[in-house]
């Protein structure tokens, strides 16, 4: 396949961004454009499943990653980002959830391979992913303490001991 020139890439990106906006428009609480090839769509946790469904039904791109984000202890919130990519365009679905009993619905029934990403999110941030097919540990050790979620900002950090 012959590579596209930058103008063609730009044209395609604009068309893709427009179609994503059209598809997601009705669910979005807010749409931001942090970069020319990106849009961030803020959603409520209840709308997440329907938004993902519409992207999948419209065959818009693919799920590239799920990022957990601790936006600070004082805010009392955690954030989950679902990054969808198509060519050069990235659509990020952003969902904010409270730190106390945080939960998001599983999207594995729509995107089966989200399984590993959801398992990582659960153990690193202590976010419950409801109805995920295998809620077992993926990365953290068997003897890892319950209730310690390493990527949260308030997770206890042990200074490394240097052996003499």
């Amino acid at each position: 396949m012959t590579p596209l020139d930058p103008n063609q890439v730009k044209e395609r990106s604009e068309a893709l961004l427009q179609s994503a906006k059209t598809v997601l428009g009705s669910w979005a609480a807010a749409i931001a454009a942090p970069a020319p090839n990106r849009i961030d769509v803020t959603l409520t946790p209840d709308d997440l499943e329907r938004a993902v469904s519409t992207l999948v039904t419209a065959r818009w791109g693919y799920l590239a990653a799920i990022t957990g984000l601790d936006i600070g202890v004082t805010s009392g919130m955690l954030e989950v980002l679902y990054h969808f990519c198509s060519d050069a365009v990235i659509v990020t679905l952003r969902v904010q959830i409270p730190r106390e009993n945080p939960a998001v619905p599983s999207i594995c029934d729509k995107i089966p391979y989200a399984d590993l990403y959801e398992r990582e999110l659960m153990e690193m941030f202590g976010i419950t992913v409801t109805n995920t097919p295998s809620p077992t540990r993926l990365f953290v050790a068997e003897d890892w303490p319950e209730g310690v979620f390493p990527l949260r900002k308030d997770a206890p950090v042990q200074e490394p001991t240097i052996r003499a």
Partner: protein
Amino acid sequence: MQTQETEKKFIFPIGPQHPALKEPGHFEFTVDGEVVTAATVRLGYVHRGIEKAVETRNWVQNLYLLERVCGICSHIHATAYCLGVEQLAGVSAPPRAQAIREVISEMERIHSHLLWLGVAAHEAGFDTLFMYAWRDRETIMNLLEELSGNRVHYSANVLGGVKFDISPEQAASIRKGMDFLEGRTCHYIEEVLHDPALLERTQGIGTTTREQAEQWGIVGPTARASGVARDIRVDAPYGGYVQFPVEMVIDTAGDLLARFTVRLKELLECYRVVRTILENLPAGDLTVRMPRRIKAGETISRVEAPRGELFYFLKSNGTDTPERIKVRTPSICNWESVLKLAIGHQLADMPMLLVGIDPCFSCSDRMVIVNRGHDNASPWTWEQLRQYGIAFYKNARRGQ
């Protein structure tokens, strides 16, 4: 493929000892006679908590940490990180640095694909090809050492550019290396396409349709072997790839043979683009000045690693340390496909199926067979499974 459930079930635990890879895994294959009926994975045996560690180090220190996510594709991790940080800081590396980054990226792909060719040939029992492929790989390792002083962590990147230049003498030896490797690669393509014993292990094995590849989220050469036209270098050209584009190699067959041909043809494309860059290397500086504190903001950086799309999400809070860095490596996408593909295949095909996605196999040399049906547990090493696979196909040939 259809599977049959009977009472005699065997579970094969494979791993977890893969100490050289970021994703060492523990697989369990449930078998019914010769046929695999279920597969699961458990990762994280050497999880080093890099995503947490980056939050306590500054932007410059993190470059060295992230380069060590992987020992095979160290440069591409650093490149993804540098591109992201530069984007946040609002600077752009000079054209010469971008071009040198691309040369090193493609040389890294060459060494990675040749490494894979050797490993895949070895798993198929074709050790002559394994030894030749790894001998030839030394050419590229020596060239990387000549450029950077290192064989593995070439550490070419700095924030805002690259550390070293490519002198005309070095360019000449790279060109010589590319000419030699191109000849060898053409020979290997002939071998892979015509050797009957290898074809038996690759043709029609592990066939993944385009729909399946998309559904399972496969990335990189494995996806392209199933006709998924997805390559970040082409879809979203970054750095030097805008000036020096590459052509995407795709195949629609979707079997192991297609994964061989896609990777081998990508090698030819690597040689071409390295030559083109060396002939047209832009003049100018190697670095631009980078601020110590990075402006607050979020960015996403995607690059094409030898195994597929590598995804970085970076968030800065305006200080000299990052707020959050998320790394999604290509292998994590591809493990899932092995689990799905395994079902319905012969146990003897497992070594080749696993190797088809290009994981690290020098490290999975530990395996246990548990015979649940007869309660006579006996340990198997990876080597035994490999030998079993080779013998299985030899016997099948004799029986014909």
